[in-house]
């Protein structure tokens, strides 16, 4: 337990060195899908796919706020965490910048549905005010960042539910959630723009080279930052974590 953070650092450092040695891809910028860059059919399709999740999320959010009003501050914290991380454009080993998603923390604390709503709010903010992402592509971006990412994070965390490696679980949940978000983005783009030769697979390799590769070190950062906040919560918000049953009794 005590050694975990240090092990995480070592793993992070080792991984980073590996990427630096493995070599450099052409510069790329991993981001959301830009406004207008999905054909109409696909844009509508992803909206339809994402909407039910969003509605479920709203209900889940309302239930938590109603039954445990004392958790509202923690909800705000989970949303704010995603807000901050999405605003940080961090340089990556591909010689370009991208930003983490920050949805892992909320997914681990409250479950994935709640993060669908909070993540969507972040995406709407960026689409409307920053011309980053877009309204037509909002459905697709919500699906990758606010649905699949949190569900992966939640699933990974549940795998460790009964182990004493809580920190490792939180790290992996956040890191993999962030990474998978961008893999889904690559899949979405490859589906909409299959290559003339090689079709979907060739296009996916191309987009994944842009999106997923850049995201790898950022996923590690995302995992580490999530563990940082997790440590604080474990020290000071024990009651709330007990309420959420994410902190094992007596741990």
């Amino acid at each position: 337990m005590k050694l975990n953070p240090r092990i995480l650092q070592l793993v992070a450092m080792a991984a980073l060195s590996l990427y630096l040695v493995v070599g450099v891809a052409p510069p790329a910028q991993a981001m959301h899908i830009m406004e207008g860059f999905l054909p109409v059919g696909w844009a509508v399709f992803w909206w339809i796919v994402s909407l039910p999740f969003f509605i479920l999320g709203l209900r889940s959010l309302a239930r938590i706020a109603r039954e445990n009003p004392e958790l509202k501050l923690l909800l705000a914290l989970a949303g704010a965490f995603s807000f901050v991380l999405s605003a940080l454009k961090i340089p990556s080993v591909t010689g370009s910048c991208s930003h983490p998603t920050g949805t892992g923390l909320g997914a681990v604390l409250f479950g994935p549905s709640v993060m669908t709503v909070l993540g969507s709010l972040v995406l709407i903010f960026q689409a409307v005010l920053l011309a980053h992402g877009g309204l037509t592509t909002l459905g697709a971006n919500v699906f990758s960042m606010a649905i699949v990412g949190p569900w992966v994070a939640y699933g990974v965390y549940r795998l460790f539910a009964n182990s004493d490696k809580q920190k490792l679980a939180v790290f992996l949940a956040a890191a993999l959630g962030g990474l998978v978000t961008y893999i889904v983005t690559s899949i979405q783009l490859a589906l909409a723009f299959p290559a003339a030769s090689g079709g979907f697979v060739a296009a996916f390799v191309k987009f994944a080279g842009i999106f997923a590769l850049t995201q790898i070190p950022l996923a590690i950062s995302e995992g580490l930052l999530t563990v940082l906040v997790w440590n604080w919560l474990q020290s000071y918000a024990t009651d709330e974590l007990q309420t959420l049953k994410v902190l094992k009794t007596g741990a």
Partner: protein
Amino acid sequence: METQYRQKPQKQGNWLIVFAVIALAVLPLIFVKGEYGGADGEAEEAIGEIQPDYEPWFEAVFEPPSGEIESLLFVSQAAIGAGVIGYAIGFYRGRTERKPSGKE
């Protein structure tokens, strides 16, 4: 009680985490030559290579008038979030330290 006992090593761990995150961001800047910019241009170019005749069919509702305004909005986003996180952590910490049983 155990939480209290664990706090010290945990704090050191936190500093290591902060250091690692900074290192992850700075090392590429030192060792990797690149543009380090270019908003969403790369994916746009890739789409252009695959389907040269694709035209985006919708424009952003609002574009920040300049790079300065854009950075202002990004900073606002980070600042609002950081403020809420700081408030929440501070609130929880203050509450924990006021508990008579919380301190040894």
